[in-house]
């Protein structure tokens, strides 16, 4: 009826609109019918049909039509919309208001599933396969390549929709071979002194410190092992790899393989074949969450004890459950909402089990990733904000005035430092755990450099200052050797100054000039001198802070013809951090976020705006139409904003760009390196004012004042929506928005559940939102609420 009234007028006969004919559906073959229904379902769901110039459907008609299409398609397992709505990009297609209205009381659940392990979990699982604990756990394995890669986009990246494929298999074949060889090697080598061992690859001399007795029993025999021994060896590998015992049916199959492999290759090769085979089970690469019978009245099954323990552990970290959690689960005390709350609270208060680097890939020769007690909680926010993507944007050194270092061999470069500093802010706010959302968006407190904690930094500065005071009135510039000789005992007592050994004159002079330029001017120097080996701190300017001395600044102080240092302004370093940085407000004005949401040569107001629309306002922006290849035109007299507006403000483009531009353009107050600015240099040859004299410096160009005007729409709060003067005003209003808070909670849901929310998750989301409000803005309360919810505990 609805179809006839609203669709057939245009979609029938030879002149059907778009060639889509709905009048002869029954005559078409089944695949064609399903295809047509899928297309019609999409058009209806995404609001593209009926078109604007046709009579609209009322809510009832819309529902009747949608229900009919979906039931027909689902009956045949053919609903492509269902498949699409599982993708991260479609998370916001469930109406925000409906989710938080509180009127949906359906019983929540997550579909029974296999969830591909993340790269981090995979690595921890390999450690577990070898039974490594404590210091024996490895950061890298010589012969193991991580088969998994998460996508780069901002937002939640690890969903349960990914599949194992041929690429994973190829990598796993090599991994399984290497791991099983090491397992057998350890068993064969048990009791033999390391020095006497012959390693097949002399460059790969690691092997697990422990070998199970079950495998030693196999490899130490020359004749065929007894069935009981084979069973024990198989069960041991099941326990190591799959964390369960093999079923009788599995045992039968593995026993056959074992015997046949022994016959072909002997005990060692036979064992290795079996060990490899278990490693190649797809179960090793998935988190299995199927639920346990019996089902409740709604058809939902609780996670089994084992599944529950792993689900909790993997929600809060990358390692499997700690022994206590496993024990609690096995004794039937991980079932109820209260059980989950108790255990999650316990684990959130455990500052050791999950402790580790937030992102080991940032660590290099001169910088180590920030370490957190709960890296995974920090990881949610870094993925949500997407600021780690700054390491993927390559920049031109000259445009940064010589300060930007692109990631390169052994270093994540400037963006690596910036990402670490953003991680620190997130972790610091999470530790405070009050008004977390608001603080992340509005804090003016930043960590910059901060390579020593506040106490250590204070001590270093006190010691340096005392030494400077001690020497400053001596003739250290003209007679350094004499001053050193006169103060030999004083210097010896201060070994941390490193004014020692054969190069003590050079070191002494370097320190004194460094201090003269800082203490001498009433300022505090950075707590690591620029002449320290491997010095790489060079990025304060991206916060609009003065630079610290260049690595080579004090190189010439010992030369005969040294005539003194040029006068330069350096940063009065705040030892106590975090500290307020002017013209910054929260993570959206952090250089790491601004660079991550910029291009190689210019800002990206559209991407910045889209991020706010989708991540903070739970909004939707259609993908760029495939026929659009829009380029920002060149015009040497216009700012980048003006040039963007030249191509995005025509009627056809504005339909989508109005969702993004007014939110992103206020950030034109920051350039593509994240530096705050009032004017924009018009970087075109005709605007050149002066060539720089500085090596890798930025030439001077004519400038134009940037406009930071914008508009906030879509908070559904009248007092917040409306024009804004700049990013700071926009951020203040966003931080007050209920929708923004709830949107972040929706993303947290996706992060911890590994899927998009459904309407049946409404109770879970409302509860999590309430938990946040009632706890004074505690993110941990949100985590406890989500992880003890029905959505987390039940499968269907």
């Amino acid at each position, binding site marked *: 009826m609805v179809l006839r009234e609203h669709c057939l007028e245009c979609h029938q006969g030879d002149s059907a609109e778009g060639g889509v004919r709905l009048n002869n559906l029954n005559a078409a073959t089944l695949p064609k019918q399903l295809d047509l229904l899928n297309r019609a379902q999409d058009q209806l769901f995404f609001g593209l049909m009926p078109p604007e110039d046709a009579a609209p459907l009322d809510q009832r008609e819309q529902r009747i039509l949608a229900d009919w299409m979906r039931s027909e398609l689902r009956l045949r*397992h053919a609903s492509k919309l269902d*498949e699409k709505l*599982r993708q991260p990009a479609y998370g916001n297609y469930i109406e925000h208001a409906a989710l938080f209205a509180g009127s949906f009381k359906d019983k929540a659940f997550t*579909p*029974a*599933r*296999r969830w*591909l392990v993340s790269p981090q979990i995979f690595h921890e699982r390999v450690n577990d396969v070898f039974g490594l604990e404590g210091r024996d756990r490895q950061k890298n394995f010589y012969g193991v*390549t*991580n088969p998994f*890669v998460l996508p780069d986009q901002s937002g939640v990246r690890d969903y349960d*929709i990914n*599949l*194992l*494929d*041929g*690429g*994973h*298999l*190829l*990598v796993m*074949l*090599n991994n399984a071979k290497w791991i099983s060889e090491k397992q057998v090697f350890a068993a064969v080598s048990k009791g033999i002194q390391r020095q006497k061992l012959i390693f097949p*690859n*002399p*460059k*790969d001399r690691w092997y697990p410190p422990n070998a199970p007795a079950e495998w030693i029993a196999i490899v130490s025999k020359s004749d065929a092992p007894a069935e009981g021994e084979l069973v024990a060896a198989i069960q041991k590998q099941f326990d190591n790899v799959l964390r369960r015992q093999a079923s009788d049916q599995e045992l039968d*199959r593995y026993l056959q*393989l074992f015997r*046949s*492999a022994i016959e*072909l*290759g002997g005990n060692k*090769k036979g064992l290795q*074949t079996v060990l*490899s*085979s278990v490693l*190649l*089970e*797809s179960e090793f690469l*998935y988190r299995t969450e199927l639920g346990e019978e019996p089902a409740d009245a709604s058809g939902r099954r609780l996670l089994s004890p084992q599944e529950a323990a792993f689900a909790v552990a993997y929600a809060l970290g990358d390692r499997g459950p700690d022994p206590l959690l496993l024990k609690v689960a096995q004794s039937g005390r991980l079932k109820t909402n209260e059980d989950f709350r108790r255990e999650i609270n316990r684990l959130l208060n455990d500052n050791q089990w999950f402790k580790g680097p937030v992102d080991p*890939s940032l660590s290099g020769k001169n910088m180590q990733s920030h370490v957190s007690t709960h890296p995974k909680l920090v990881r949610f926010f870094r993925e949500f904000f997407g600021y780690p993507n700054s390491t993927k944007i*390559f*920049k*031109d050194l*000259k445009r940064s005035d010589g300060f930007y270092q*692109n*990631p*390169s*061999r*052994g270093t994540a470069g400037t963006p690596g430092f910036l990402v670490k500093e953003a991680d620190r802010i997130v972790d610091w706010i999470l530790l405070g755990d009050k008004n977390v959302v608001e603080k992340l968006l509005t804090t003016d407190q930043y960590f910059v450099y901060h390579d020593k904690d506040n106490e250590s930094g204070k001590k270093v500065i006190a010691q340096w200052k005392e030494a400077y005071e001690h020497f400053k009135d001596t003739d250290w510039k003209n007679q350094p050797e004499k001053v050193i000789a006169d103060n030999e005992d004083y210097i010896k007592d201060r070994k941390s100054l490193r004014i020692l050994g054969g190069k003590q004159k050079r070191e002494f002079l370097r320190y004194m000039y460094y201090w003269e330029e800082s203490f001498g001017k009433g300022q505090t120097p950075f707590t690591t001198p620029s002449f320290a080996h491997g010095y790489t701190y060079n990025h304060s300017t991206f916060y609009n802070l003065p630079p610290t001395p260049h690595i080579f600044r004090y190189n010439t102080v010992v030369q005969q013809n040294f005539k003194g240092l040029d006068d330069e302004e350096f940063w009065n370093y705040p030892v106590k951090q975090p500290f307020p940085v002017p013209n910054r407000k929260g993570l959206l004005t952090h250089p790491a976020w601004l660079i991550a949401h910029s291009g*190689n*040569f210019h800002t990206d107001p559209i991407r910045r705006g889209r991020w706010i629309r989708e991540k903070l306002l739970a909004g939707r922006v259609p993908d760029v139409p*495939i*026929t*659009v*290849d829009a380029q920002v035109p060149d015009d040497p007299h216009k700012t980048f904003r003006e040039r963007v507006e030249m191509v995005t403000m025509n009627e056809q483009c504005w339909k989508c760009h109005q969702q993004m531009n007014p939110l992103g353009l206020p950030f034109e107050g920051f350039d593509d390196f994240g530096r705050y600015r009032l004017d924009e240099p018009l970087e075109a040859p005709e605007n050149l004012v002066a060539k720089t004299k500085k090596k890798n410096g930025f030439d001077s160009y004519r400038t134009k004042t940037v406009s930071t005007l914008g508009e906030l729409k879509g908070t559904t709060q009248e007092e917040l929506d409306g024009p804004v003067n700049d990013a700071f005003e926009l951020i203040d209003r966003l931080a007050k928005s209920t929708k923004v808070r709830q949107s972040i909670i929706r993303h947290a849901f996706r992060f911890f559940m590994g899927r998009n929310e459904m309407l049946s998750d409404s109770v879970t989301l409302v509860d999590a939102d309430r938990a946040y409000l009632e706890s004074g803005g505690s993110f941990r309360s949100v985590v406890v609420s989500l992880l003890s919810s029905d959505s987390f505990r039940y499968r269907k």
Partner: protein
Amino acid sequence: MVTRRTFVQTGLLGASSVALLPQLSLAEAPEKKPPTRFIFLHKGNGLLPGSLVPPTFDKQQLELENRKQPLEIDLNGHDLPQWMSPLSDHQKNLTILQGLSGKMCTTGHHTWCSSLGVFKANERLSSIKWATVDFELAKMLPSPFGHIELACFPGGGGNSRGNINGIEKGFSARGPQQPNYAFGSPKVAVQELFKSVSTNQKSKANYQLEQQMLRFVAENQANLARQLKGFEKPKVGNYADALANIRSRDARVESMADVIRRNMPKLDEKYLADNLSTVDRQTGHTEILLSALISGMTNVVTFTLDELGTRYTGLPEIEGENVNQHDVGHGKAVARFSALEVREKIRQQHMHVIDQIVKRLKGIPEGTGTMFDNTMLFYFPDNGETHHSHGTEWPFVVLAGDNTPLNLGRRYIRLPGYAKEGHKTLGNWYTTILNAYGNPTEHYGALDVGLAIDQKGPIQKFLG
């Protein structure tokens, strides 16, 4: 404007690029037309652009060359530089291509997947952005192995960090964060690639064990997949299919046993030893490369002739020396030879390798011509123009068979210099090759952020 058609074509190609194993499309592969083959040979320590200039250039040509002005000169009638003399029989197939830049790559000493992937790579797998160009080509040229990589690994620095005989991470990449693995020694390569036809009892048993395990795991996973439905089914089904595909590949290789056996590399024991000179290692690998191509096991081979950290032994007249290429890069003489002369010796050895390959392929009939007619060979540095390179130049020596669709032919070509109008990058060059052989990508590789000119797309004049 990108048309819907080209977008869909490109999109589909891109989408299939990571997930599919090469052998998936074997069944559909047309057998009639001889396959196209690609050989990538790369070297460390830079390739000095000046060393490629024919000594017979006249004053005017030399002046243009020295000023890095665009040049296009027919090589007919010109002598090749002395070190290139082993290629004199192949001059009609030869192109010397100068003036490409590669500043979007890691440059300097070691470059990992940079020169084949056109991005800034380093030892971290996370730096691998996408499949290297040889893998992109291999995807279009189905064969049982898809792609084979051989390497004279460095002993220090760079890849592998010293395990020069093993199967280690190579210089090619299958996809984002997916390194390829290369065979370090001829012995290991023969064992692995030709294990299905091995006559050695131990190797035979190992192969059978491997097959037994694969059959077991494939059956297990297929059984499990059969019990699943909905979204869960492909999560295991896909994996089971991939296992089945590996088994089909092995079956296909087994079915080629006769042809593989006929083309087994015939190597003396010295080439299969654990300790062999660099030159012998190269010779051994070259025989394996030829066997793999001729037997049809693969159509794309990448061979790391050396890397900066590869210690050279066995070079003519300095056979006993253990040449440290890093020292040579810094101008250190070896025995009575200056650094430049040592560089020349190394390059000349590479030319012998190329001659060995081209001559052999020219001797094998295929279709109405020879196997070489359907082959392209690239010789290039892994890091650009010199030891401490900046990537302003990336010279290529190309040998192309008669059936190449590329318009290169017997020329010395110098493209406009860095940042000059019409300047071309490594990305443009690879885009040209990919486009010419059917991959319609708009641009392959990262862009040079310091280059203000339009740097996307193929080099049109080579597309004919």
